[in-house]
């Protein structure tokens, strides 16, 4: 078929025309593309450059290593151990449910954890990392790391966590750390950004809390390049933070361990102080708990068990427990009277078993009466009437003043939680506190450490140390900070008459060394190590007439929480005092039968520094002392074996 040439020409012309039109349209579109490139890449370049930088650069805090805590001999009390955890950045995860399901297939994931993560995701900002599981094993961490590509937004992290190798021994002194709670954050004004790192640990109680500022250290900062999944590709630069400062405590771990073991499962507290420096060599409160449980996040059953325990294991009784000091207060009354010049040590008071004061009868603990008593006999036999008499003569103000000079009613600056001041009562105190006028009976009660008088075991130890030295010894718990020795608690002379002090000390010596002394059964036999002390049995409340009718006359017949507190304070050696000790056994019964042997054992341990010879104990106590020594020895060996097998 031949075509009409005209038709052909027409077709070529039309196609050329249309081709040029279409070409023109294409050129125009290419122009638009070029302009768009110019718009994005030249005009808006700066803005997009900024966005690209924001995309890729992330500023991260480097948590500093928390300062370690050592005992006076350099043994570790609180350390940092590597801990592995798995976190998730919700924003990068895409489908959290899917990712959590995959994660659960890899590692053990408790349903509570999954639920907790789900609710947390809804609460936090999308770019805040959420901890899925803490303290996973290295194996689990590796599994997650290897499967990284299938788990967007999931990061295996290596961090440091607090560990207390001597957990139970130091729970009440060093306290514990725990993750920052939103409550903590509200408490702090302008909080350190570090605290916003998930699960960052801060001190919650004890030294950990009190020395938080110096233990925490300063955060470092690193700029990292991240990819679209939030995974860190490389580090651009970093400014190192400062690790927390190391602390050395004055506590001696061996003695602390012994003391804690000696108190055993009683609800009790004991404080051992160095008379020379005021160093707290042992600060024990029983029962104790394992602070490591809290660091890990304690289960609610464990926690309620601790809370509901009537022996209150969470309370550091050494500084928080306030007890009527009972007869251990008698040195205060005696010294107040001696210093006032009202009595001499030789003056005697006749004890018929009671004293009538303004129509009220105040009994001596010995109903039959002690007969004629001087200072030494009254203290060693703990006659109450003698002190009633002194108090009536000297008055409450002088007694209370002496109590404060000896360290009672004063809150010491010890870095432990809720250090209580106790009460050295005055007329003003009663008026302010109870809105009542002081009556003479209050003075009589105060003279034997009952009534309004309240003291903590640590205060009693301080009192004992001050009686032993005549100086204002103050307790010191921090030996050095970052290697810098802290000021000692040596203290200045109290300005008490040395003769009077000597008389009181001599009387205290008689308590534990005189055949009729209340603590004679708990004396120390080793020559040159003898202690001077004072027993105390403080009433929680009187036995009521109703109870007497029912035949309850003995302390042991009462329910535990109404029995008397057993107390003992002492210093040793008598000739050249090195240590002062105070022991309180809550509702333990008699000071001489319960508290004195404990104090004696602790004293011996402290004086010998190692296992004391059995000959130092009275014959009747040797088998029990031996049993405890052997038990501790076995435990130490077991621990060492465990440590070796771990290594």
């Amino acid at each position, binding site marked *: 078929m031949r075509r009409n040439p005209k038709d052909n020409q027409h077709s070529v012309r039309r196609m050329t025309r249309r081709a040029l039109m279409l070409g023109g349209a294409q050129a125009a579109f290419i122009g638009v593309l070029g302009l768009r490139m110019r718009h994005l890449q030249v005009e808006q*370049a700066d803005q997009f450059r900024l966005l690209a930088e924001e995309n890729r650069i992330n500023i991260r805090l480097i948590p500093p290593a928390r300062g370690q805590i050592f005992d006076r001999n350099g043994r570790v009390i609180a350390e940092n151990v590597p801990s592995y955890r798995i976190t998730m950045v919700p924003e990068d995860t895409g489908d959290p449910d899917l990712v959590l399901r995959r994660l659960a297939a890899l590692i053990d994931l408790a349903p509570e954890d999954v639920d907790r993560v789900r609710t947390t995701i809804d609460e936090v900002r999308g770019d805040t990392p959420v901890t899925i599981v803490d303290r996973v094993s290295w194996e689990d961490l590796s599994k997650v790391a290897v499967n990284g590509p299938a788990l967007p937004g999931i990061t295996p992290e290596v961090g440091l966590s607090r560990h207390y190798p001597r957990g139970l021994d130091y729970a009440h002194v060093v306290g514990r750390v725990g993750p920052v709670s939103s409550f903590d954050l509200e408490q702090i004004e302008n909080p350190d950004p570090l605290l916003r790192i998930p699960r960052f640990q801060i001190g919650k109680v004890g030294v950990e809390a009190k020395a938080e500022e110096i233990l925490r250290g300063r955060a470092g900062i690193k700029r990292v390049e991240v990819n679209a999944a939030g995974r860190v590709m490389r580090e651009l630069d970093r400014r190192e933070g400062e690790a927390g400062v190391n602390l050395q405590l004055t506590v001696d771990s061996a003695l602390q361990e012994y003391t804690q073991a000696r108190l055993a499962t009683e609800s009790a507290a004991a404080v051992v102080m160095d008379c020379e420096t005021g160093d707290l060599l042992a600060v024990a409160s029983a029962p104790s708990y394992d602070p490591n449980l809290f660091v890990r996040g304690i289960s609610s059953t464990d926690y309620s068990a601790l809370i509901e325990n009537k022996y209150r294991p969470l309370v550091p009784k050494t500084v928080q427990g306030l007890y009527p000091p009972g007869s251990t207060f008698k040195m205060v009354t005696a010294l107040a009277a001696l210093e006032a010049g009202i009595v001499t040590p030789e003056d005697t008071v006749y004890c018929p078993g009671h004293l009538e004061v303004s129509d009220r009868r105040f009994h001596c603990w010995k109903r039959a009466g002690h007969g004629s008593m001087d200072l030494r006999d009254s203290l060693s036999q703990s006659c109450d009437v003698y002190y009633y008499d002194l108090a009536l003569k000297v008055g409450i103000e002088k007694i209370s003043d002496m109590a404060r000079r000896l360290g009672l009613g004063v809150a010491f600056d010890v870095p432990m939680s809720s250090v209580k001041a106790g009460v050295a009562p005055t007329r003003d105190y009663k008026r302010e506190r109870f809105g009542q006028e002081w009556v003479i009976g209050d003075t009589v009660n105060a003279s034997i450490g009952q009534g309004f008088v309240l003291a903590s075991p640590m205060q009693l130890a301080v009192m004992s140390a001050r009686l032993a030295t005549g100086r204002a010894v103050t307790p010191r718990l921090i030996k050095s900070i970052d290697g810098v020795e802290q000021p000692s608690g040596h203290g200045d002379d109290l300005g008490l008459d040395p003769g009077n002090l000597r008389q009181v000390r001599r009387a205290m010596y008689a308590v534990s060394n005189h055949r009729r002394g209340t603590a004679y059964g708990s004396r120390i036999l080793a020559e040159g190590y003898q202690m001077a002390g004072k027993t105390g049995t403080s009433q929680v409340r009187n036995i009521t007439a109703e109870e007497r009718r029912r035949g309850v006359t003995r302390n042991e017949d009462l329910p535990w929480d109404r029995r008397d507190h057993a107390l003992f304070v002492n210093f040793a050696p008598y000739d050249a005092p090195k240590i002062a000790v105070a022991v309180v056994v809550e509702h333990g019964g008699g000071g001489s039968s319960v508290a004195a042997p404990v104090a004696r054992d602790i004293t011996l341990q402290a004086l010998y520094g190692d296992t004391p010879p059995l000959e130092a104990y009275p014959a009747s106590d040797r088998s029990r002392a031996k049993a405890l020594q052997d038990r501790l020895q076995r435990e130490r060996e077991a621990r060492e074996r465990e440590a070796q097998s771990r290594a």
Partner: protein
Amino acid sequence: MSYLEYTVKYTPAGPRKLLYLNWPVALLLAAVAAIGFLMLYSVAGGSFSPWAEPQMKRFGAGFVLMIIVAMVPIWFWRNVAAVAYGLSLVLLVAVELIGEVGMGAQRWIDLGFMRLQPSEVTKITLVMLLAAYYDWLPMKKVSHPLWVALPVFFVLLPTGLVLAQPDLGTALLLLAAGGGIMFLAGVHWAYFAAVITAGAGLIVAVFQSRGTSWQLLKDYQYRRIDTFLDPGQDPLDAGYHITQSKIALGSGGWSGKGFMQGTQSRLNFLPEKHTDFIFTTLAEEFGFVGAVSLLVLYTLIIVFCVISALNNRDRFSSLLTLGVALTFFLFFAVNMSMVMGLAPVVGVPLPLVSYGGSAMMVLMAAFGLMQSAHVHKPR
């Protein structure tokens, strides 16, 4: 006009044909492909595997394919146009039945040595068929409704099949390429005006109907449109791609961050960085200068094709060359618009630069046809 009707004064034969190839176009294609190798090397983090090396091999094979196709006389290709078209329709149906779906929506048939995407093949066979149709159709019948309906049917048939895959990008390309050739062939203005008006009306209707009882699209489809219109609204989902792509482009600035220094692509902020979004890597690493350079290379290819077409008195050759050029244009124009946020994200690769086998081979075969028309033009 058909070859039979010319008095061909001189037709090159044998190896001499090589001298008559449109070498500028061949060299421009190689230059564009070279840019592709460079970018694939870069997005792999400075490595020939996994993308640059296979891409280079494919381009080599494609170049050989182009020359082989170019050596075959153009009239042979015109004569087999209908058969090729038919074959590609069969393949489209076959892939619907036995094909495998992978990476997005495109379906392919595994031939053993390569994965054949019938929808890619159709792009070129449709151009061949329409060119042949208008070569055969007398000029005065071109605008006759009946003779207009027939090519419309030729276009819609594969478009529908591709849409069913569902591959919206390719379907739109087929529609645009088909319409373009009909326009070039001289179909009356009124048809196009009518179609454009109807299209505009449809768009208005789609938007007007939203939220009413006669809503024309599904809710999720509206959301996709919203995302395109305002990518910031949905920064973590579909809009993420557009936003990150624009950040990559924009942060490149005038001269770019330097070869292999593109943070957006290297740190995986870019999606599909080796395929559909490879242009963003180029723009990020070589900046405005690099991006415009590629655009200029593409434009030159189109220009040389149009010159070749206008200098060819053979109607089939001209239409075919213009059709190939138009298809090529549509590829890069849609891809660039998409990554620059001017068009919604529809999976269309950047021709010769994006990693991918089928598209590269089909494109090189198409340029083979264009070269064949060039070599065998009536002189």
